[in-house]
């Protein structure tokens, strides 16, 4: 761990301006924002991240959850995961988000972790986190340790020959199903990015994980108004009962009218290099009468492009069961 400069700006513009001179906002950035610190501090101790400057966001006025006049929700970047999970509007209109948040980490970590921090949560790939090991994400060109190593936990969707690291977040899976929009401000202007365009596939550049550029600061996330009559839930499967990253998870939102599904949103976790929206599954569900066979068919569609590694082939079947069961539970209560 090396020494670094620590600053604590009082407004968003100066925070964004302070970060603008960095060469990258991606892996190895020499200037980093710090919110809850639950990922970054770990990685700094491991020498995976070695920023020269930390910009503390904890004093910025980004800690509110607001109901939007046109329906929908605005979630400040600094809202703590536990506060968000227990927010009345989230519990009532977006239960999938509350469930996803509460299935992640531990109570202590959720009390520290923030919305924007969770959006930028880094992979738990063992090779990424160990600087003596090859990793194209940490050190482009060094190779992928996981492909011929311990890859049981690794991704089966969106992988490349350079990287198979899983996006570990639960929250991001729910936000993807909810079609969240991420709002970004830099020194010059603001912009908004749909969550499904926010994350990049590893391809040849696994070190680039998001569309963020130097000086980009996530200020808040918005959720559209919930679909009328929508039921949503998050189902997470893992080895032990608590405090573990997903082997497979599913966030589903459905509405059923006249015994037909007329709205379905599906995202998968624990299996993708990014939070995995499955429009294939959504299409397979559109207009159909809910049944176990239809859910299974949707799950088959979602996993069609899956590419397993030597140790994680079981994730294909596990994810299918996860999604099928999540759809069953969501439509039972619908």
């Amino acid at each position: 761990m090396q020494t670094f400069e620590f600053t604590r700006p009082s407004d968003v513009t100066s925070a964004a301006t302070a970060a603008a001179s960095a060469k990258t906002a991606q892996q190895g950035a020499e200037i980093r924002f710090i919110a809850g610190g639950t990922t970054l501090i770990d990685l700094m101790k491991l020498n995976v991240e070695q920023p020269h400057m930390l910009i503390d966001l904890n004093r910025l006025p980004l800690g509110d959850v607001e109901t939007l006049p046109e329906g929908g929700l605005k979630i400040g970047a600094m809202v703590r995961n536990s506060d968000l999970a227990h927010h009345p509007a989230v519990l009532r209109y977006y239960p999938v988000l509350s469930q996803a948040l509460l299935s992640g980490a531990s109570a202590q970590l959720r009390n520290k972790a923030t919305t924007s921090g969770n959006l930028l949560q880094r992979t738990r790939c063992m090779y990424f986190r160990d600087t003596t090991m090859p990793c194209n994400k940490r050190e482009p060109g060094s190779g992928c340790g996981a492909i011929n190593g311990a890859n049981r936990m690794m991704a089966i969707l969106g992988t490349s020959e350079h990287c198979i690291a899983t996006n570990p977040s639960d929250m991001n899976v729910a936000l993807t199903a909810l079609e969240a929009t991420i709002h970004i401000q830099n020194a010059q202007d603001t912009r908004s990015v749909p969550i499904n365009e926010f994350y990049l596939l590893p391809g040849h550049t696994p070190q680039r994980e998001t569309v963020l550029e130097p000086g980009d600061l996530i200020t808040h996330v918005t959720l559209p108004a919930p679909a009328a009559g929508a039921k949503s839930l998050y189902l997470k499967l893992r080895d032990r009962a608590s405090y573990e990253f997903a082997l497979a998870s599913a966030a589903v939102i459905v509405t059923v009218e006249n015994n037909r599904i007329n709205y379905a949103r599906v995202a998968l976790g624990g299996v993708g290099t990014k939070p995995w929206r499955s429009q294939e599954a959504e299409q397979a569900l559109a207009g159909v009468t809910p049944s176990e066979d239809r859910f299974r068919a949707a799950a088959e569609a979602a996993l069609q492009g899956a590419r397993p590694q030597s140790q994680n082939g079981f994730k294909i079947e596990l994810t299918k069961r996860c999604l099928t069961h999540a759809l069953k539970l969501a439509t039972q209560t619908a």
Partner: protein
Amino acid sequence: MPTAQSETAENQALSVIGRPIPRVDGPLKVSGTATYTSDHNFPGMLYAVPVPSTIAKGTIAALDTSAAEKMPGVRAVFHRENIGRFFRVPPNDDFSIVIDENRPPFEDDTIRYYGQYVALTVADTLEQAQAAADAVKVTYDEETPDVRTKLTQEQEPKVGSQRGDATAAFNTAPIKVDQTYVTPAETHNPIELHATVAVWDGTRFTLYETTQSIKNHQLAVSAMLGVPPENVRIVSRFLGSGFGGKLWPWTHDVLTAAAARALNRPVKLVVDRKMMFQTVGHRPLTQQRIRLGATTNGKLVSTQHDSLNHSSILDDYDEGCAEATPHLYRCPNLRVTSGVVHLNVGTPTSMRGPGAVPGLFALESAMDELAVKLNIDPVELRLRNDTEIDEALNLPFTSRHLKECLTVGAEKFDWHQRTPAVGSMKKDGLIVGWGMAAATWIANRLDCEATIELKADGSVRVACGTQDIGTGTYTMLAQMVGEALGIDPDKIQVVLGDSALPTGPLSGGSMATASLVPAVLEAAKKASEKVQFAATAAGPFSGQSVANLIFSNGRIHRKDQSPSDGVPYEQVLQAAKVSSVSGSGSSKGDFTDALGITKPKLSSHSFGTQFVEVTWQPEIARLRVSRTLTVIDGGRIINPRTGRNQIEGAVVMGVGMALFEHTIYDDQHHGAPINSNLADYVVSTHADAPAMDVVFLDYPDTHLNAFGARGIGEIGLAGVAPAIASAVYHATGVRVRELPIRIEDLLG
């Protein structure tokens, strides 16, 4: 004058053995005031951080410390050429000094396991020392390490116990089971990391250590440093557990001591979590072939247990998987063998229930398979094979109640409700599986000395050079002394964890509690006799014959008086103008019997059964352990509260062993134990803990000591994994013979 009724009540209240008193050290622990090893700080103290090798096999080609030495706060960078000399612990076969990793640190430039220390940085702060360690540049001539997980025999297996003709009997047996079972390398993960704080005064070392054996630590470390034992004092007041990993010294101990000596400053070294997976032992991978031959009505006629386990390149660590096999069941023909396979891994060591725990996974899984094959209830199969004598030694047991463990367990668990067909039981929409296994563990004592001091201020001090690893030794001692003297345990100050105290037992093999009893009783007797003697000098009993006086319930009285008519001992001492009196006791142990060094007169073991319920949701491949019942025949339980805590903790650990724990050595990446953190090395969480019930049969084993107490630190883990595997088979129809049982094994 108390009434007869209150007299009786008083007497009962004074009987403290068997009373579920809270831990006497509990308030210190929950208030953060118990001083653990790494809590020790001294003026001018420096911090040491080891540099671990990043290969598992090869040699150091170059070690460049120049950059590290120039970094801020750095006091020294030690390595083979400047650390000074370390010696090896003298080889012995009498258990007089024990160490598992025999090679001292920095002895040569050969790397034999990943993480082997190659240098040590010492700086003013931990951060500076860590930064310097990161800056030491090591280049290696790397060779391909051998960290395979399929073991093949290296040499002729060592024959352990043997009787009859196991091969011939197996060949002709009408019913046979022949299977191989595998348990993976498991890493001890006590919350408290290994640590040493070394203080050197120019002649002597005081080493604050995380050790389960201060006495052995003193002998082994002094031998390695080449100084007399009396120049090394070991202090270990509180331990955040050890699970066997802290029984013997590891390489960081002498490195820290040598650094303190060289720099003439106190030095602290804390082994980090990643290094815990590399340099301080683990339970080795075991591969065990079990062959059972039985009659059609389920009587065993042949048992063969052939096990291999991995060890490090230089050490012959034999896990002893067949520890329990020779005496658990009646079987006329038996043969057990073991072999060691040397790999590029750190040296294995004892982990809670070494030998028996992985061994019983194999043996009891095979018994379960035999029950299925015979269509005999698994409880009934064990009952049919119960034995009255230890056939391996041809000796009676001191106290064996396995039969009652089986019947009581079956009754309390409602075992008769079990339907044997796979997947046939359901509850709340889930498939339920019920399984069980038997368990056993050694019951022995170690040498022990203890001193009890009775003081004129009314307090009592008991001192013993043992240590409390979190199991409750402080509390046990307070209760034992309280019982022996008839004094409230609240008044008893227990002093442990210092090698300057009378030599006590190590905390291992579930032997500490039983070992303490004879020495404590003798010390109490001698101390109370001194009070009697003092009573004859002054006060109401002045001039009386000692033979007419008696010490009971904390009072001196005449033999024809009741204790309540006597005088409290502190008043006796005050009258005699004496500050305190003390008595010492000592006893020889019998653990050498278990090691085969001496010949036992009786077979001494604890027994138990585990009954387990799992729930299974095939639609999402979710398996959970929902309910357990443990029945323990572990002698007389001194404290049912701490006792239950031991068993429950072991069951939770057993859930982890059965379903989660597994150290992965990456053969593609330098042989590194790659999942070396608590996110990737999965242990049980609270949410994984089932509803647990514990029954102690509480039969005193008075052959072991006067209280009939045995140790119960390990018996609770034995049998958990095979009972879970049995329940998993019952729920799913999948027989998993390689731990951990994982989701992918059950997906179908």
